[in-house]
């Protein structure tokens, strides 16, 4: 069941997304950005028991995975969630799922004939 080269590229991206989300602090940060819309680190940091520096570090990890982006706004940066990236990761799993359906269909024909 070779999967296509294009799917391969998609997978590399999706793995980064899954890994970036596999941390409680980062999940909470994404959650807050989803709920509250774009915001600065100052606002984002309210209520987090860790330093702004630590939060920036987490944001950078997610930025590398393409999950969040920042844009300069006055003297601060405003962070937002990259919606397409989340959707891509989900679509990716759906694609693998569909490929398994197809592959198992072949196994079925093979053992039932």
């Amino acid at each position, binding site marked *: *069941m070779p999967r296509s080269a294009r799917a391969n590229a998609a997978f590399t991206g999706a793995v980064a997304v899954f890994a970036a989300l596999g941390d409680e602090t980062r999940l909470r940060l994404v959650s807050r950005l989803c709920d509250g819309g774009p915001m600065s680190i100052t606002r984002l940091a309210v209520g987090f028991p860790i330093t702004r520096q630590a939060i920036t570090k987490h944001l950078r990890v997610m930025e590398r995975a393409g999950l969040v982006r920042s844009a300069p706004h006055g003297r601060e940066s405003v962070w937002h969630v990259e919606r397409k990236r989340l959707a891509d990761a989900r679509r990716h799993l759906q694609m693998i799922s569909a490929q*398994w359906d197809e592959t198992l269909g072949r*196994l079925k*024909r093979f*053992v039932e004939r």
Partner: protein
Amino acid sequence: MSTAIADRIEKKILLRAPRARVWRALANAGEFGRWFGVKFDGPFTPGALQRGVIVPTTVDADVAKAQQPYAGMPFEITIDRMEPERLFAFRWHPFAVERDVDYSSEPTTLVVFSLEEVADGTLLTVTESGFDRIPLARRAQAFPANEQGWTMMVALIEKHLAHAA
């Protein structure tokens, strides 16, 4: 967990064939290769890295045609466990199909085939997991409460995607 970004895929399929037949189609490298579309160098051995090359499947002409451009490309799986007529598991690099790319340092996913005898034949359950590379133990530690963590994330992402749509 079936919505949004789950980190595993689970499939169930009823095969109208005896469990011993299904087991052979999985555990015998030659038989596996015929429906899957790969030719392995040797028999499956637990713990071993099994090398092979893509050879278009003989089971489906359309799929064989789609596989043709990849014919001859290396294909590898590492056998994780073999429990006769019960369980067959391997690790692989999903989507490792680019020529000239070394995937050995990249994370693998675990594919598990479980067989269960039922009245009409064999119920086969396939799971592929590890898409997030986070060991289950660590995740359990990170998310002690049921209502938090992944469940929360899934709900959030669902909501978020609904917004985006």
